[in-house]
């Protein structure tokens, strides 16, 4: 009998599984500029995200507790830095909670750790801030570590899903839809104050799962039947094409050209959230100032990236007299019904501001955004000497037609 082991079970669990001895290559900090370094993103961080937080701030008891902020901060924690700065200005503390899908020994980790070290050292940052090394989508499973982490740190005043890709996806087990639903469930159970859901998502046709179309459309079709205003508005602004009105947009999605598709996707996302929140009967939802922009900078391209800000507000308890002995006069106004909220979303989605175009036409604001971006990137360890050049080259080119329509 040989003494040689054929079974290595005795040595299992002595060393970590798959452990490789040696140093990994470290990724240098602040090397290449990336899409989220563009000035327009910085403009949105300040003028959409921070403004939305300022809007709800008076209704939050931030003298007793920190602002609770959940996001996908990446390795550079750019949004964490901006929100920390805002909280410093507001004189409140902030609990920063992040999801970042990277293994503890991955290359990018040192970058993240240094960033965390810097951001969490700020006096405005609450001690139990943390970045969890898991994919946000894992919150889809209520038995997952990711869900446990989100549950432990929550509820949140701000949930910011700043995606590079699309909120839509094919995997039904783990999806942004399911993860968001689970998170909203936690929010609705535990929150008593308003909260924000900031969502940045690709909205072009090939980024949206066609299997979602009929479900989205069903949500909207109800409103079309309920309200002539809604019907009129959706037909006029979303479904009118050169070939005439589309009666069932998802069945004939191919006929919907950009940017109608993108706006409709935004409307459908809004409607999806609204339908969910309606089931609680305790919350209303509205869309705050929202924006869109384009990932392709060539001349004539339409926006395909939505930057949406949804505000959820508790509906105050309100008694009425069903017998009619006391009239409704003088009672506080009832919460808006679903259709009214849907019309509001529809109108705001129709009026989305094209932030690329806005900055093209407002040079001082563009300049301000460039300066603020430089400042942010410098904090993240970038040598920003070449930034301005890069940023100017990355500005989209507008066709005369696009400029004319706007004017």
């Amino acid at each position, binding site marked *: 009998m040989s003494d040689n082991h054929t079974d290595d079970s005795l040595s299992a669990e002595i060393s970590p599984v798959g452990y490789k001895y040696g140093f990994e290559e*470290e990724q240098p900090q*602040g090397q290449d500029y990336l899409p989220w370094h563009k000035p327009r993103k910085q403009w949105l961080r300040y003028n959409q995200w921070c403004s939305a937080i300022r809007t709800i701030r008076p209704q939050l008891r931030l003298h007793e507790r920190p602002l609770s902020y959940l996001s996908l901060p990446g390795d550079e924690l750019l949004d964490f830095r901006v929100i920390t700065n805002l909280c410093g200005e507001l004189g409140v503390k902030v609990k920063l909670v992040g999801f970042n899908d990277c293994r503890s*020994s991955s290359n990018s980790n040192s970058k993240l750790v*240094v960033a965390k070290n*810097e951001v969490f*050292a700020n006096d405005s940052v609450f001690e139990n801030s943390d970045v969890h090394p898991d994919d946000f989508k894992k919150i889809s499973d209520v*038995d*997952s*570590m990711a869900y446990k982490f989100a549950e432990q740190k929550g509820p949140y005043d701000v949930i910011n899903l700043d995606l590079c890709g699309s909120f839509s996806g094919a995997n039904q087990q783990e999806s942004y839809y399911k993860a968001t639903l689970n998170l909203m469930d936690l929010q609705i159970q535990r929150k008593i104050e308003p909260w924000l859901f900031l969502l940045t998502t690709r909205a072009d046709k090939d980024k949206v799962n066609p299997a979602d179309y009929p479900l989205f459309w069903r949500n909207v079709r109800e409103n079309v039947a309920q309200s002539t205003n809604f019907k009129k508005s959706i037909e006029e602004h979303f479904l009118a094409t050169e070939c005439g009105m589309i009666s069932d947009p998802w069945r004939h999605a191919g006929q919907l050209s950009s940017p109608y598709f993108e706006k409709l996707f935004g409307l459908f996302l809004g409607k999806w959230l609204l339908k969910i929140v309606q089931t609680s009967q305790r919350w209303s939802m509205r869309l705050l100032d929202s924006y869109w922009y384009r990932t392709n900078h060539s001349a004539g391209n339409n926006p395909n990236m939505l930057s949406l800000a949804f505000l959820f507000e508790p509906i105050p308890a309100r008694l009425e007299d069903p017998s009619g002995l006391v009239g409704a006069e003088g009672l506080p106004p009832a919460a808006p019904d679903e259709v009214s909220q849907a019309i509001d979303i529809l109108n705001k989605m129709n009026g989305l501001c094209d932030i690329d175009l806005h900055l093209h036409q407002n040079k001082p604001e563009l300049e301000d955004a460039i300066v603020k971006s430089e400042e942010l990137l410098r904090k993240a360890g970038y040598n920003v000497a070449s930034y301005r050049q890069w940023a100017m080259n990355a500005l989209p080119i507008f066709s005369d037609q696009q400029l004319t329509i706007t004017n």
Partner: protein
Amino acid sequence: MIDKTEQIHDLAEKIRESDIQHPVEEILQTSERVLKRITDGIYRQPSSALRELISNSYDADATKVIIETDSPRFNRMTIRDNGNGFTEEALASLICSIGGSPKRTYSGSSMGVTNKNNSDLSPGGRRLIGKIGIGLFAVAQLTKEFKIITKTKGSDHHLIAHVILHAHSEEDVKTGVKYETGKSRIWKQKADDKKSQGTEIILLNLLPKTKNELSSKDRWLQSQDNFILDEGDKPLSPPKYHIGCVLKSDENKIYKKPSLPWVNSDSSMKKFEKMIKAVIDETGLSAQNPKLEDLLDNYLKLLWTLGLQVPVPYIKNHPFEINGNDNIFVYRVGNNSNSKAEKIELAKRETIAQKIGMEAVGLEKIAGKFDVFVDDIQLFRPLLFNNEHLSEHTIKNSLIFVGKDNANLNNIPKEMRGGELAFEAYLFWQPKVVPVEHRGVLIRINNSNGTLFDETFMKYPISEQTRKNQITAEIYVHEGMDAALNIDRESFNYSHPHYQYLTKWLYNAFRQFATAHKSLGQAKRQDRLLLDASKKSNKLEALVSEKIKCIKSAIDEPIKIEIIREPCVNISSERKKGRFVYKADSILPSPSSKRTTDRKLLDGLFLEKKIKAIAEILASYGVFDNMPFESQEGLLKAIAEILDFEE
């Protein structure tokens, strides 16, 4: 041989020139002051490693330490503080000379590690816990690979060191290969905020052993129904409070949901407070005193242990902050072999520290704020000083025995003395120590402890098991004892004069406590017995007068029987006056040697009351009419002997 200082200087220079693309690589070297195998791990528990890292943060003047894990998965662990951070020199010294810490040396001050005027103090003036610089390498217990990210105030860059430790090989020794403790890669990285400072240690690739221990894997495995046990084995059940566990096949999935004594929305402090309350609330639910081992899983026990060991505040008050309003009896123990514990009366708001001049509270205040958080739970010393668990006990107040000593070691030659020794201590008595792991004495050296409670009271030689089980004691060593601690800080060198002196002091203090406790107990018991006897006599008297009232022939004035002990009283003349007077020895059994206990002494007293009562009844019935006094005495004595009869 290259001079060590020069080597450190060279490495520090190289670090200054480095960046991420041009890192410095260096072999780890141990100092000759410690064994080279130190990095193989000399600690037994994960809590030891965390304790050492927290102590390092304390020594670096941090006010806050944050430990983060992804419990119960334990794929990651980081320890972050806002302390002074490492300079290039301090980092180079750490790498070039493990165990050759600049702490407690003159070079420590130039590296920003120690105080300019006193190398036993941190730059901010705290008494240093660490001494030889192996604390950081306690992480070898948890992992063989880690990163240090550190920054000093005013610096425009972070220093990052990636360290991989090797395992010691006897083969290398035999073949003459130079043993390397490990290797490191170090680089500088630009920092945004010059003002910030601190150190973060990221433990990479935690060892399976560590993960299993932290997640109480054995406990979970053994609690499974399908776990195969040998005949006679008792399966373990999961503890009442636990963090749950993940699936072995998919670590991202929770297999068992946690059962915690707190809720998520509780504050960091409230969580720890609730854990203590949960343990205390177990008292009385079973015959045994609550045990951490039964109630908490390894992770929660780790929090508890760290709370006891690291220099964090008590959950409520320091024991020397007990005041008159707390209704705890305070005694002061003396330092002589014939000293007796002296009871101290405190005014309502007067504390022990104020009354006796204890320094421990003040020294902790001077050391300043030091908050430690583990996964959103703030650590505290889980010790409460109140009058809990006393309702069933003879003594209705907890007792605290306090003392202090600046040891006089003059009779030991200076070279053998091991320096000065100064300490303060308390022994807190309560009928039940909860949890049982708090029985014994815990020695804090410079505000820190590695040994936990020694339930033998440093091998106190007298059999006092009941009293030993009722005492929680702490000794705060302000000066000395450091040298008596072994390198792992988890055991002592018993032959060191400081340890020997402390042992004797504790024995003496325990003796004083035991004597005072005995006499207090005896007095309390006697008080209680007397009270009981008085209540019983009153009831008996009431019964007799009730019975007499029922006797038709009873005269209006009830007959009073008197039993007298004084020999000089003339019985005959008293009887002639119509009084029923008897001498005690003529009607009561002779005092017996069996009346040794308080209870039996009182039984004897009560027998007298009973005989008196019987005599009054008999007299009221007229039984004594026309009966000579001698016969009366004979009758009563016979009855008394029957009542007193005991086999």
